[in-house]
Structures are given as structure tokens and as C-alpha cells.
């Protein structure tokens, strides 16, 4: 589904990704962990199409297509979803109106008819219940005045509405208490399917108790330096990253 080969990306002349490889197959859940500043959000941003980053080498294909050639909105319509580490507040733009426009753009792209107002509202009710998002939030301005937890749940709500094939969750668990974490994880799990893949960026093993990954990768200095199964996350939780850094230094 997603194939990243030797990806190099820089911002303002700083090389952040330095030869990153990753292969995600349909239905898989990949967790990406790594110390602060190692390039996790950069990877997520590059995949979503943020234009500030310059890709200096490497390829990314998504469902056989060259992802790097696509505008951000085309990537979204093709089925990529990024849950932002820091969701943006957009005063004056109603959450629901914008989402309606987005859902219909995505549907049109996929050859589906636009939803009627009634169908759309039904979908909103169903999906906001999934993440226990207060219905009133849906009518407010995008993320404006939302608590940290509400913002993260709003991201998962949007994901549920847009039904992506590949969802990248950038620290969706940060700043959530256990209850909120469980809600978010349930929302994600409800969406797992053999066709849909997830890349879950996190600092905490805790999330992976709820969203059980098929693979765990460690991203360090712009490269995936270690990969394993969910046991690797437990090991990292216990021992920290120093041993990984040492391994990387001697490699």
C-alpha cells in the first residue's frame, strides 16, 4: 500500500529525513516511536504533502502511484489521512460545513455521489458517537476553544468521516487521560479492516496496549534504525532510547 524508499527531506537546509525506508501493507498497523526531534512529525508531514519540506532523494508510492507528485488535497482524496500532532484552530470556519465540503470532495474523487444533507447528518451522528464527541463541538469553529483532548477526538472523528485507506496518527495519544485514550483507541480499532492501514506515531507503549501494532519501528536521526514487533515497544518503555542510540552510533 505504502512504500517509502531512501527518503531524504529537508527544511530550511536542515536534513531531517536521511534515507528512510518503510513498507506498509494493507490492513497493517505500524507504530513509529523515537526520541523528540528524530523526524516523526516530519515524516507524517511529508506524507501528507506539506510544501515547506524539500524532498532531496527517494521515492514514495501509495497504491502504486507516485505520492510525492500529488497535491495535499489529492493525497487526501486518494485515501491518506493525517491526524495532526497539533490540530490547527480555524476561527469562523464551522467544523461541520468544512467537513461536509471535504467529505463530498473525497466522494466525488472516488466516483461516489455527494451525500444529501440528511445522509451527511446521519453520518455525523454515527461517527461523533464513535469517539464520544459532544455533538455541539461539531457545530463550532474548527478546533477553536477545544480542549487538547477534544482536538484529538475531533481528528479521529474527521478520520472516521473521511474513511481513509491509510491513516497516519501523529501523537494522537499525547495529552489524553486514560479514559480519553480508550475512546480514541476504540475509534481507531472500530475502523481497522483488512484494507485499511495505520501508521501510529507515539511516545508511549500505553497506546499500543489498546491499538495493537503489527510492527514497531524506531526512528532516530531521520532513519528507521530498528524494527520489531510489539515487544520492541515494551523494551523501549523499559530501557529508553540510549541503547538504540549506541547501536546506531556503532552501526
Amino acid at each position, binding site marked *: 500500500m505504502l512504500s517509502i524508499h531512501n527518503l531524504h527531506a529537508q527544511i530550511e537546509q536542515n536534513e531531517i529525513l536521511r534515507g528512510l525506508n518503510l513498507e506498509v501493507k494493507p490492513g497493517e498497523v505500524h507504530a513509529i516511536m523515537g526520541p523528540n526531534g528524530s523526524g516523526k512529525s516530519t515524516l507524517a508531514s511529508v506524507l501528507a504533502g506539506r510544501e515547506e519540506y524539500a524532498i532531496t532523494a527517494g521515492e514514495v508510492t501509495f497504491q502504486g502511484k507516485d505520492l510525492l507528485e500529488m497535491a*495535499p*488535497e489529492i493525497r487526501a482524496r486518494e485515501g491518506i489521512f493525517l491526524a495532526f500532532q497539533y490540530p*490547527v484552530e480555524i*476561527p469562523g*470556519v464551522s467544523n461541520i460545513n468544512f467537513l461536509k465540503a*471535504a467529505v463530498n470532495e473525497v466522494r466525488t474523487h472516488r466516483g461516489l455521489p455527494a451525500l444529501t444533507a440528511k445522509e451527511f447528518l446521519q453520518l455525523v451522528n454515527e461517527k461523533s458517537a464513535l469517539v464520544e464527541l459532544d455533538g455541539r463541538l461539531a457545530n463550532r469553529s474548527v478546533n477553536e476553544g477545544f480542549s487538547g483532548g477534544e482536538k484529538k477526538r475531533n481528528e479521529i472523528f474527521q478520520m472516521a468521516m*473521511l474513511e481513509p485507506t491509510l491513516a497516519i496518527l501523529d501523537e494522537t495519544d499525547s495529552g489524553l487521560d486514560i479514559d480519553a485514550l480508550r475512546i480514541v483507541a476504540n475509534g481507531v480499532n472500530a475502523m481497522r479492516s483488512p484494507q485499511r492501514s495505520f501508521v501510529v506515531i507515539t511516545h508511549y507503549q500505553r497506546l499500543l496496549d489498546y491499538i495493537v501494532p503489527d510492527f514497531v519501528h524506531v526512528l532516530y536521526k531521520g532513519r528507521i534504525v530498528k524494527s520489531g514487533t510489539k515487544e520492541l515497544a515494551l523494551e523501549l518503555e523499559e530501557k529508553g532510547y540510549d541503547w538504540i542510540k549506541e547501536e546506531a552510533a556503532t552501526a
Partner: protein
Amino acid sequence: METTTASKKDQLLGQLRTRPSALSETFPELALAAREALTELDFPTTRQENWKYSRTTKLSSEEWTIQPSEANISLNEWRIPGLDAIELVWVNGFFRADLSSTEIPAGLSIGKPAPHTIRHKEEVTMDFFSALHEVHCTDALAIRAEKSKKIEKPVHVLFIQHGALPLSQPHLFLETAELAELEVIVSFVSVDGEKALCNAVIEGNAGKSSKLTCTLIEREGEQNALICRSLYSIERDAVFHIHTHTISGNWVRNDLHIRLNGTGINAFLNGIYLPRESQHIDNHTLVDHRHPHCESNELYKGVLNDRGRAVFNGKVYVQIDAQKTNAYQNNANIMLSDDASVYTKPELEIYADDVKCSHGSTTGQLDEQAIFYLRARGLGEDNARRLLTTAFILEVLDRLESEPVKEYVVELLKKEDLLLD
């Protein structure tokens, strides 16, 4: 330079000499003062503080004439859908009773201004255009809501410019007597015209505890110039709203002076301007707090595209007696093009010490983070930008109390491709 503009002025005045003024018989002293002032005054230059960023060469270089017109003009395009209004139609600055509503509700009077009508004397000789207006006013009407009368139907004044090179100089007096309520919408439009100069004055007086709302909808033709002077005196405990929407027109200057003559007044000033291509839009506002316990709240927003230019100058005076004043002013601009320019200047002069005043002025681009966020959800770039612009402008339009008027302005902006469908 001096001699050419001087001759332009003399040319214009010579050409207008035989035209009577619709104001001079009723207000002879002001006519005299204006006539005298005109011997000195000339087309403003950018050396004058009030005209620093607005060149008038486009105005002085044309040969304007006063042109009464009997043209039969269809009003459909200029009506506000869903608004049952009393229509007062003017063509080239002359009131056209034949095109206007004939049924006037009880409590509302419409007619020639009376000699005791409150005038804003200082502004008569404020500059060349105000004096020119006083001396050669084409037509004047006074609209008055009688004491304690709430006029249910709004009044829609349509100032139509028609034909080539008309100089329209219409004058409106709006008045709400004590406890009365009145809503007036003034549209400036152009029908089958090439170039026009409309030099309008609207004087208003909101009586004690009355409510007066005036909504300007400026839809001048692509080549037209508009000068609109709004001069208001507000009495104690009155509520006053003024909305200024500049939607089209090549060169537009709005002056808005509001005097708060009593305590307990609430005044709201809202405005939007959207210069694009080579449009020039200038808003000068002045709110004069003279008594305690009044509030003024001003919000003007601009979206600038192409080579559009905008000027915003907002003066707020809080006089020494005006304790407990709340005065808020905000001007925000979004630049959609590198070639557009905006000159914004808040001028607060506060002489009282126990007041709450604030002003803010921002100029910037659309938030690129927000655009990326919207695109990452599947919205096209153009739509993402327009969605943000729409949100920006709607903050002002949401302050319109009249739903049909708000809908109408939104539709106009959509038609100009400025708002998202």
C-alpha cells in the same frame, strides 16, 4: 501641476455656475460659507493629511456634468430579495418620485428638509467636495421617523448613476425622533453608465432613546467614483448602527463622522472593503465621545487582491467629560496579492482618564497552517483559501441585524467570487 488642477476646478465650477443648489434656499448661510470656501478650496492633493493616500487626479481630469434623467430604469436587479422595503429611487442625484414607493406608512415622513434640520456645519467646508456638494447639491430628501414610532418597513434608498459622466450630488437627512426606530439601506449602483462621480452626503440625527440603522451597499460601476459623507449626531440613550459595504466601484471614499451628544449611547460601526484589480477604497471614520457612559464599537475588515489599494483611518476622540467610555476599534486586512497595498492608521485621542479603549490593526496573509489543514482533509487550495476569506468577512457581516440584507450582501460577494458558495 498647480495650474492644471486649478483650471480643472474653475472649469468645473464655471460649468456648474448656473445650477441651483437643492440646499441653498433652506440653508442660505451654509451655502454662503461653502461658496466662499470654494474660492480657496481645490481638488485635494496627497499633501493634505486627510488625502495622503487617495489621489483625486482621476476625478479632476474628467468633465462632469449635472444630468437630470428621465430614463426608465428597471429596479429588479437592485432590490433586496425577501425585503419588503419602501423604495426611494434617485437617478443621477435627482429623486424620482415616479420610480419610488407611494405608500408611506404612518409615523414616517418623507419630504424636503426643513430649515431647523440639524446640520453638521463644520463638515460643510471640510474640503473641496463637501463645499462643492453644498453649493451644487442636486436634490435633497429628509426621512423622519416620528416620536415613539417604530417603522416596521425598512427604507431602501437607491442612488442610481446613469449615462456618461454624470455628477450626482444627492443629500439625505435621516432622523429618528425620541423613541423612534428606523432602518435605512442606501444602495449606490450604476445602470448603463460609463463613468460617474457620485458625491453624496447623508446627515443623520438619532433622537433620545431612538434606534437608527443605516446600511450602505456600494455597488458602483467599474469605472465610477464615489464619495460618501455620513455625518451623524446621536442623542442620549440612542442606539446607532452603521454598516458600510464597498463591493465595487473604481475609486471610493467614505467619510463617517459620528458625534455622541449625550450619555448612554451605543454606536456600532462595521465595514468591509474588497479592493481588487485597480480599485481604490478609502474609509475615514471619526467617533467623537463627548459625554460619559457611551460605547462605540468599530470593526472594519478588508480583503485586498490584485493591485487593489485600501486606506483605513479611524479616529476616536474621548473628550475630557466622557468618563466611563468604552471605545473599541479593530481594523484587519488580508492581503491576497503582493501588489495590493493597505494604509491603516488608528488615531485615538483620549482626554478622559476613566475609560476603556482599545484598538487593533492587523495586516497579514491567510494562515498557511490552516490552509494546509483544510487541504489535508481534501479541500482544493482555492476553496481552502476562499473558506478562510469567507470566515474573515462573515465576522463583520454577522453583525447585520437584518437577515435579508445579510443574505443579499453574501450573495453579492459570492457573485464577485469573493465568498465561497
